């Protein structure tokens, strides 16, 4: 395989994974605050439809993205009110919202099915995109892809290098302690749930306006569940979650390359592989199989690897907190 081909493949993986990256980072922020927004699969569908419909009707990509983010934030707000205010089961509410948003996207999106519409224009960064290898891989994309890079960096910086980020971790781990230290737990949970939802909404528009252009029935069906699984795989760390999204994108690309190479393999196998893989990866992460495999490594490497592989959910994830 020559270098040019490899570079093109890597660049396309980075571009194709951009919506998934934005969605997983968004959901990571939400879950870090202790709230599960399980509605991702529906939210992404509804915001992808909304983003495309608005951009198609108004001719403005900006309005399309804004509308999609508003939809994502609104659905997340329902999750927030239900869990923070009403102490309802977050999984139940999220599941109902998944089905509701999916059907809403089919019903309202009906007039836009298979219409050719606007897409985010290609925008190579002058100068940087000319650098060999690095240029085409990182700086020869559209604005959505650059935004996905930015989102990873910003989320990491915010969570691990700022004071509010520290508070965010506290809110998800030990809300009572964070509250005693002066954090407004309820308000912060609202904030991060809605913010995360807006990012998920942006991811939806990123599909319909950049990666999987246009709108069709169940356009992005299933991808929201993959995103939720990647958040777990990423151990609630934004960079690791993004790596998970890229890994998923890589496997997907390899899969479609393989499909071309081995013509005998039925296409139906490929429909299910992402989901079979999802179970398998979660199994590796949660069953402790990885931990046991660590014993094979030299003791010195074990500690570093263990730190890199450690996965633990925010302790207060999915629980309600009543501040008095």
């Amino acid at each position, binding site marked *: 395989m020559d270098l040019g081909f490899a570079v093109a493949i890597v660049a396309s993986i980075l571009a194709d994974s951009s919506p998934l990256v934005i969605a997983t980072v968004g959901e990571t922020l939400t879950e870090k605050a202790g709230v599960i927004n*399980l509605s991702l699969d529906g939210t992404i569908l509804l915001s992808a439809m909304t983003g495309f419909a608005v951009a198609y009707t108004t001719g403005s990509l900006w309005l399309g993205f804004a509308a999609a983010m508003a939809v994502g934030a609104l659905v997340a707000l*329902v999750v927030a*009110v*239900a869990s923070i*205010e*009403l*102490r*309802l089961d977050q*999984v*139940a*509410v999220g*599941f*109902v*919202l998944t*089905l*509701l948003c*999916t*059907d*809403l996207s*089919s*019903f*309202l999106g*009906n*007039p836009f099915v298979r219409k050719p519409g606007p897409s985010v224009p290609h925008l190579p960064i002058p100068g940087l995109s000319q650098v060999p290898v690095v240029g085409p891989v990182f700086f020869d994309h559209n604005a959505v892809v650059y935004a996905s890079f930015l989102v990873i960096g910003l989320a990491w910086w915010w969570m691990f290098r700022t004071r509010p980020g520290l508070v965010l971790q506290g809110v998800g781990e030990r809300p009572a302690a964070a509250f005693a230290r002066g954090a407004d737990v309820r308000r912060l949970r609202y904030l991060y749930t809605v913010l995360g939802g807006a990012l998920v909404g942006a991811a939806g528009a990123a599909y319909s306006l950049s990666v999987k252009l246009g709108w069709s029935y169940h356009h992005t069906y*299933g991808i929201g*569940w993959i995103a*939720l*699984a990647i958040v*777990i795989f990423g151990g609630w760390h934004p960079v690791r979650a993004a790596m998970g999204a890229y890994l998923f994108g890589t496997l997907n690309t390899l899969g479609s390359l393989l499909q071309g190479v081995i013509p005998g393999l*039925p296409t*139906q*196998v490929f*429909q*299910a592989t*992402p*989901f*079979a893989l*999802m*179970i398998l990866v*979660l*199994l590796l992460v*949660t*069953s*402790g199989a990885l931990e046991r495999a660590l014993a094979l490594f030299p003791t010195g490497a074990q500690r570093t690897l263990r730190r890199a592989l450690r996965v633990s959910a925010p302790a207060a994830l999915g629980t309600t907190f009543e501040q008095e």
Partner: protein
Amino acid sequence: MTGAWRKGAGALLTGLVPVVLALAFSTLTLLVMGASPLRAYGSMVFGAFGSTAKFTDTVMAWVPLALCAAGLLLTFTAGLWNIGIEGQIVVGAICTTWAARAWQEVLPRPVLLLALLLAGMAGGGLWGLLIGALKTYGKVHEIFVGLGLNFVAVATTNFLIFGPWRTPGRATMSGTALFERQAWLPTFPGQAVGPVELVLVAVSLAVVYALLRGTRWGLSLKAMGRNPTAAHWLGVPIHRYTLMAFAGCGLFGGLAGAVQTLGLFHRLIPAISSGYGYLAILVVMLSGYRAVGVAPVAFFFAAITKGSLQLPLELQLDSALGGVLQGVLVLFVLLFQGVRARRKRWAQGE
């Protein structure tokens, strides 16, 4: 007397508020689409009840919904999320189809039908057991296992229909070849629905009701659902009960899959589950997780689902409106329960 009356009226009123809100929401979405809400609802009622054929269609949607809901009562009681019920329907249908292809020319009819129904149950039960096993031994959350296995089950169906079970010279999207007549469930004269389906629903709901209400097993399941740690200390083997709940639910899901293949389509088709598994989850939520409400709520949902199929025919609207109405109704009911509980907490001065 008047107090009780007022309380009853109050309960009715608070029960009606979510329904009104849900109707308001779906009316709004219809207005957004520029459609007449009255005509839309009218055509939905016609689609569900407009003729004997339409009514029996609704009944044939009610059967798998009620069967799945009966099974889901077991997992919900145990505090488990069986989103994998879709896959259990599908694998049930696959196993029934496999058995039908193998035995339809060999066995006498009553034995054949019984064997085919049991094959479906076995398939669904095993697929459910797989979720339970991956949860208990692999510690993966059942939602992800169930969901992933749903996709695997559907892909397997497609593979079989387009691959080994393909009928030469026919469009494959329409599914496998029709079964022999003797592998079809019997029907009332001239109708799509038959006695076997109705008996299966009645027996399933009765069995689940009795299990949960009157047995030690059901009580343990309930204890586990309320508080797994406490149940564990009381001597309930949580792992075993998790496996049993999933397998038990899978039996009913598989039965629903068998009925879909033997009673409705008479073959295996790509969308054999018709999404009834996910819908049954909403049915159980709306029934307050109790067996008593399942039959009427499932019928109501079946009517909405079948009725909404009339929308594309008459008004060029997408049939997904039915799902919107169902989803938003359950959402508002949940939110309202939350509001009521909150008011109660405040009244108690918490």
